[in-house]
């Protein structure tokens, strides 16, 4: 597959994956490996002062192969998102950040005003800024104009598995953007991943659809193939599958 740039780095894999919700670290590492992902998201959380034994998370993690993408999940205001991003950079050594400023607990939809402000601050601070945003072409344009390194519009609410609810908005976003567009959140199946690629996504970011599957490692492989295979463009009328020549009686 062709390569593409995010910030000052070049990538080939067009499937990005999360690292949460796995039953254990072994399954997580196997699934990440099977996905072929080169970008892996992590969350930043208080360490357990009484049981600081989270090292299994990083064991077997190929930091050479995978760029760590800390997120600001759980942040509902600009200040906590910016501080979480800075803590994430310090903890992981990665200056990539998936900026989330959440505006509503039930839908986890982003707060557009807060997101724009947080991105402005983090861009000034030298981050490679990848905002999780609503599938709104106007917001995506504003994020691009700020200097964000990609936009990551949702397909559906986080963890919902509802698939691509608004392909037409996503298509507009992809047509107008001169920065990478990564479809993030809500993708449920490998066919959704294929649709996202057909629409013109640079990449697809997934977490729950893989980690929550009956067999996460197999689903990771399926998602990888869905992204790599793509699908045919949709059209209104038929194209014959069988030869047009040699039909009897013609």
């Amino acid at each position, binding site marked *: 597959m062709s390569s593409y740039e995010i910030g000052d780095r070049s990538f080939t894999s067009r499937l990005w994956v999360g690292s949460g919700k796995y039953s254990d670290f072994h399954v997580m590492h196997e699934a990440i490996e099977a996905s072929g992902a080169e970008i892996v998201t992590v969350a930043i959380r208080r360490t357990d*002062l009484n049981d600081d034994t989270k090292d299994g998370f990083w064991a077997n993690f190929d930091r050479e192969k995978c760029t760590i993408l800390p997120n600001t999940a759980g942040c509902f205001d600009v200040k906590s998102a910016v501080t979480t991003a800075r803590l994430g950079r310090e903890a992981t050594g990665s200056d990539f950040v998936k900026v989330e400023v959440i505006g509503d607990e039930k839908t986890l939809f982003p707060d557009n005003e807060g997101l724009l402000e947080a991105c402005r601050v983090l861009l000034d601070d030298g981050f490679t800024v990848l905002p999780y945003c609503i599938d709104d072409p106007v917001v995506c344009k504003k994020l691009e104009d700020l200097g964000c390194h990609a936009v990551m519009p949702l397909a559906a609410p986080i963890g919902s598995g509802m698939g691509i609810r608004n392909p037409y908005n996503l298509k507009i976003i992809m047509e107008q953007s001169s920065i990478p567009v990564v479809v993030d959140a809500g993708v449920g199946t490998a066919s959704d991943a294929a649709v996202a690629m057909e629409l013109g996504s640079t990449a697809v970011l997934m977490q729950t659809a893989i980690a929550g599957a009956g067999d996460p490692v197999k689903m990771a492989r399926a998602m990888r193939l869905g992204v790599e295979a793509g699908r045919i463009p949709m059209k209104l009328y038929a194209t014959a599958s069988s030869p047009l020549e040699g039909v009897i009686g013609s």
Partner: protein
Amino acid sequence: MKIQVNGEAREVESGATVADLLDSLGLEVNGLAVAVNMDIVRRGDYAAVKFSEGDEIEIVRAVGGG
């Protein structure tokens, strides 16, 4: 003096530094990040930054997330 560490009240000696706290908690510094009153403390500054009464300290790590 009293400080808050990850939301819990803790008692530390007057003049205690970030390095002292991490040491007393037995935390592995690798992979950690620390903020005092929401300002990040760089790893190289752990031994230099001293707490004041009532400081709010956050000690975080990367965990699985999406």
